[in-house]
């Protein structure tokens, strides 16, 4: 039987100082143009935590508003804060940077993270008050070091600084004197990814209301790589995060395919559960420091706040069919193959219409499509356009070409089957998966029957292939049958064998056909 989506979680971490100190756009600018006007102006364009919480797309991400709400809000959205916005939402929370630094230290098992002792003393009570932070994690936070110790690591030992309100409050020590794969920069990036994945997993366990020990396998689908000089991408982020999140019965592994990673991972998780290999699988991903302020130059140039100031994280829990939760239909898996080609039409056909046609469905039979759900408030000022809208127009155009809708119905199709984007531009984070939480609710509330999640990945960025990548899958209303009620092939064979034995005996005059 198809496996089901039991729960999901969506978290954000507001990281204003990391935008300045760790974003790749800013780091590159410091190298090539250290005295640039952009770097001078940047601090005046950084949002406060309260502003990030009140930002409508962030409220949608954590589930306090629906995607449809954004349709009623005229763009731009950054200057229309939500009144009385809550940092806690239906799907997750927005964690402030100071608490997150303590979580990073809780995730550090090699003593590379050091925090300044006064900072720890000030933030620890607040950290402990976070409903997701239980005693086992709070106890992992160390007392802290003198600022001299931290300054020495950053200034003389090739360490990475942790800043809060533009003040040095901690450091990440390099893991090796020579190996660049264990540099403080790489360790910092990986610890951030791990910590935001841990936050997503903790939120998932809470949302699903299960025992953490019920999870048997974890798949990490972020875009970072951990390893040393001899195994640059050795992994395993999944198991490392599961350890801190207390998933003691789980093992795990990492799945990578740039932004397509989450869709691949969910298809694999659904397959593992359907095959009976594991009963309960969590797919998780933390956020990317490199992408913070990625389009900052355009935002600053246009007088906007730097809108890429949050890390994203999500997790999805997939389990055995319970007859209630929405199913992942593995009979309708779209795939961009090596031979598909790279034209937009070929890509969209392979991911959308081809898998639907295999089971006799039309494009209009899918109630909602979720492809690239990047927030257009971020991308439009940077000249990258409205990515979700472009995707939905392409899907509608293919429906016209297939003769499934009239050309004049194109805008209606986009409105009915599409959504405005709300996810931060964190690569894998906006890729199809932001809608899963809403899709599960919409299906359970009988608002829709079927949604398609589409993941697309830019493999060419790794310089190993010019190929594009993508996979898609369908989430659908549960048929109502539980795994335990289903009849297995072995049971069918047993029924037939018994019936044939009875029939044979009746022919021989045994007369017990009805036995």
């Amino acid at each position, binding site marked *: 039987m198809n496996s089901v989506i039991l729960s999901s979680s969506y978290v954000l971490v507001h990281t204003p100082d990391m935008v300045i100190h760790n974003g790749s756009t800013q780091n590159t600018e410091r190298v090539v143009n250290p005295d640039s006007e952009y770097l001078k102006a940047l601090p005046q364009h950084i949002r406060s935590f309260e502003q990030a919480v009140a930002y409508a797309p962030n409220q949608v991400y954590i589930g306090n508003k629906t995607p449809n709400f954004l349709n009623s809000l005229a763009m731009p959205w950054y200057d229309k804060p939500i009144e009385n916005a809550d940092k806690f939402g239906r799907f997750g929370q927005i964690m402030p940077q100071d608490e997150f630094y303590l979580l990073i230290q809780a995730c550090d098992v090699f003593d590379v993270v050091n925090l300044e002792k006064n900072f720890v003393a000030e933030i620890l009570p607040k950290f402990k008050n976070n409903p997701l932070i239980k005693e086992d994690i709070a106890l992992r936070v160390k007392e802290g070091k003198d600022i001299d110790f931290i300054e020495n690591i950053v200034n003389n030992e090739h360490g990475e600084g942790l800043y809060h309100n533009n003040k040095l409050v901690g450091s990440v020590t390099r893991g090796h004197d020579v190996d660049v794969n264990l540099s403080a920069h790489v360790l910092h990036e990986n610890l951030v990814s791990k910590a935001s994945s841990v936050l997503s997993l903790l939120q998932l366990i809470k949302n699903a209301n299960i025992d953490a020990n019920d999870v048997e396998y974890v798949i990490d689908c972020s875009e970072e790589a951990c390893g040393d000089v001899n195994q640059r991408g050795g992994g395993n982020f999944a198991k490392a995060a599961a350890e801190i999140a207390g998933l003691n019965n789980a093992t795990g592994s990492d799945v990578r395919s740039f932004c397509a990673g989450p869709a691949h991972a969910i298809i694999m998780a659904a397959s593992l559960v359907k095959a009976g290999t594991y009963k309960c699988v969590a797919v998780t991903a933390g956020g990317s420091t490199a992408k913070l302020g990625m389009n900052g130059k355009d935002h600053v140039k246009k007088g906007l706040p730097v809108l890429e100031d949050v890390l994203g994280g999500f997790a999805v829990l997939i389990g055995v069919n319970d007859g209630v939760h929405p199913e992942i239909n593995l009979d309708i898996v779209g795939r961009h193959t090596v031979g598909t080609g*790279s*034209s*937009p039409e070929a890509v969209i056909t392979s991911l959308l219409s081809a898998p639907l046609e295999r089971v006799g469905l039309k494009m209009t039979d899918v109630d909602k499509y979720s492809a690239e759900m990047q927030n257009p408030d971020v991308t439009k000022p940077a000249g990258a356009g409205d990515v979700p809208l472009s*995707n939905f127009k392409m899907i509608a155009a293919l429906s016209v070409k297939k003769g499934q809708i009239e050309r004049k119905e194109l805008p209606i199709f986009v409105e009915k089957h599409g959504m405005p984007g709300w996810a931060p*531009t964190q690569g894998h984070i906006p890729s199809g998966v932001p809608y899963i939480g809403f899709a599960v609710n919409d299906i359970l509330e009988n608002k829709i029957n079927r949604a398609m999640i589409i993941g697309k990945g*830019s493999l*060419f960025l790794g310089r190993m292939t*010019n190929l594009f990548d993508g996979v898609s899958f369908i989430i659908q209303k549960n048929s109502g049958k539980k795994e335990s009620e289903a009849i297995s092939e072995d049971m069918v064979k047993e029924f037939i064998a018994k019936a044939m034995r009875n029939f044979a005996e009746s022919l021989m005059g045994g007369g017990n056909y009805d036995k």
Partner: protein
Amino acid sequence: MSSIKDKKIIVIGDRDGIPGPAIDACILAAGGQIEYSSTECFV
């Protein structure tokens, strides 16, 4: 618009728009010469 036949072309494709290889195919069909081609991700 002038013809691109025999012109040297630099191609920057967009992963969420028209990717480099698709533009390459059009340019080659029209007789242009591709000096450099890549696809970039802007999101």
